């Protein structure tokens, strides 16, 4: 177990600077998720941590020791790759035990550790198979087993579930998190899937264009997004964003009048964007928002009702037993403290 710290990290490819002055602390035993869209720099940061990419500037510290120039093999880090990166010519047990073999551990001890990891990962019956003879989920587990037997200081995961189907992804999410809870190894996990981040992380690091947009717990990012970008990225269905202005102490937009959330720093006349989470809203006979029902998407446990408000699509999550019909006019409401207000120009939370 170890702490990982990034101090003013800079990364350039030739003349192109892709990361500028990035600083972050990951605590001992923490499960940190680097979240963001493609090209935001999350995988680059992970690969720099592993030593697979050079650090152009700044300091990368593991347990307080500077790692910038340390060879990957000497960093005591285990990594699970997006495409698993299994050794195709080795059967499962050799794949898992390779790191122990190169450290010249006795064969009996290697076998013992491999079998223990395989038992945890339900791979005992597959130890003599080759990677090409395994399913995606089994390969994923072998990759995790390879990391487990290392007993490394830090585990790195690079979008490990992106090649799996939805059901297996949900199962593996749980398994990875349980594995972390059991081993308590500091873990850095890269994903573009906000559901993975929300369900697994102790700490989410939301990235955009090579810099950190917001760091916090999943609840922090959901309940108090620091910016329009953070608000829009987190949450399914996505947050409803409405542009308007602060007029007479309230938020006003075409057809919508909302009270300002308590403690907001918005000033009169300021152009602002209101963010309303579909799950924070209720449909009813009375409300501050009026719209025409376009579609009701049933998800099983609930339904997402799409409203047309002045030509804009607006989603409200409602219990599945609420009856709505297309073209029906309905009212929606939201408690003032659940309204997120952002400056339209800067995107910053007000």
């Amino acid at each position, binding site marked *: 177990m170890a702490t990982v710290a990034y101090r003013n990290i800079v990364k350039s490819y030739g003349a192109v600077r892709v990361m500028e002055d990035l600083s972050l602390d990951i605590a001992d035993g923490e499960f940190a998720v680097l979240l963001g869209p493609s090209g935001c720099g999350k995988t680059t940061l992970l690969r720099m941590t*592993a*030593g*697979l990419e050079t650090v152009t500037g700044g300091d990368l510290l593991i347990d307080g020791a500077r790692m910038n120039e340390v*060879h*990957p*093999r000497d*960093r005591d*880090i*285990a*990594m699970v*790759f997006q*495409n*698993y*990166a*299994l*050794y*195709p*010519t*080795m059967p499962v047990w050799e794949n898992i035990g*390779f*790191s122990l073999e*190169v*450290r010249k551990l006795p064969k009996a001890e290697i076998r013992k550790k491999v079998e223990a990891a395989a038992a945890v990962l339900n791979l005992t019956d597959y130890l003599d198979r*080759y*990677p*090409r003879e395994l399913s995606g989920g089994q390969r994923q587990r072998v990759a995790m087993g*390879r990391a487990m037997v*290392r007993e490394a200081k830090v585990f790195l995961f690079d979008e490990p579930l992106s090649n799996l189907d939805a059901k297996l992804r949900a199962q593996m999410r749980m398994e990875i998190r349980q594995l972390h809870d059991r081993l308590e190894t500091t873990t850095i996990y890269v994903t573009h899937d906000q559901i993975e981040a929300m369900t697994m992380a102790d700490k989410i690091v939301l990235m955009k264009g090579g810099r950190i947009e917001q760091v916090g717990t999943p609840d922090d990012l959901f309940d108090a997004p620091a910016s329009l970008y953070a608000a829009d990225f987190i949450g399914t269905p996505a947050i409803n964003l409405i542009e308007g202005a602060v007029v007479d102490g309230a938020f006003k937009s075409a057809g919508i009048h909302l009270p300002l959330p308590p403690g907001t720093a918005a000033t009169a006349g300021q152009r602002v964007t209101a963010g309303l989470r579909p799950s924070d809203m209720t449909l009813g006979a009375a409300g501050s928002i009026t719209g025409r029902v376009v579609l009701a998407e049933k998800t099983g446990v609930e339904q997402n009702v799409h409203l047309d408000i002045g030509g804009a699509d607006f989603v409200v999550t409602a219990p599945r037993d609420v009856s709505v019909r297309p073209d029906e006019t309905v009212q929606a409401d939201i408690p003032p403290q659940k309204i997120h207000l952002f400056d339209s120009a800067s995107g910053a939370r007000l």
Partner: protein
Amino acid sequence: MPAVTSAKAVFSSDHPLPWLFPLIAMLVVFTIYPLIYNIWLSFHEYAPFRRELEYVGTDNWVALWNDERFWGSLSVTLTYFVVVLIIELVLGMAIALLLDADLAGFGVMRGLLTLTLVIPPAITGMMFLLIQDAEFGVLTWVLEQVGVLDGTAPILSTPSTALLGVMLADIWQWTPFMVLIFLAGLRGLPGEPYEAAMLDGASGWQIFRRITLPQLSKVIAIAVLLRGIDLFRMFDYVFVMTSGGPGTATYTLSLYAWQQTFSFIKWGYGATISLVSLVLILVIANLFIWIAKVRW
């Protein structure tokens, strides 16, 4: 029209034979017939005075078994085969790994590698004959300067070194072929297992032995198969450089078969030697194919 319909029906994918006919015809004319004729020939011998082939039963096969020169040629061929193959394999792999590093200028070097392959082997033989000439050969001069040769035993005229001299031409010409094949194999390997191995703590040698080499096993098997077959029937270099000499020090099976067939007009005996070569090549080739059938 019915005729058109019938031609269409015959040349459809439902009837493979018409499509296979040209290939089958070529195989019959250029491979199967010569093979059968060769087998038939090995039980006959040319009688120069009567100017005809006469049946001799198993005489050629018995004579071959008792022919010291045949066993000598076989020994030379096997020595040449093993030594050259190992050197070309190791050297080819080493150069391929080096060129795979993609340093400045390596692209040009990869292109230059193909040059040796377009030179006819007979010309290469002439080049190395001159390079190793006892009086003005560059290699002879260099080896004399460093004290390896003392001027009394020219490379190609000394029984103990003549075969090495011939091998040099082969290695120079065909190592680039190995390099190109291995380089293509190396370029096709996925990068992530290497990164994983680095993080697993493997050294460069461990990565090569446990990751690279097993993944290249099929490529290596094909390269060894192609070169192995060529080496086993090697003729050009010894024909041009030594004519099998000094004595019989560089007599390969191919050269011996050629000598028996065309110099001594012993067509049946030459055919018998060729058949033994063929069987040996088939055995060795199948051995490589069997080794290459890795499970992964």
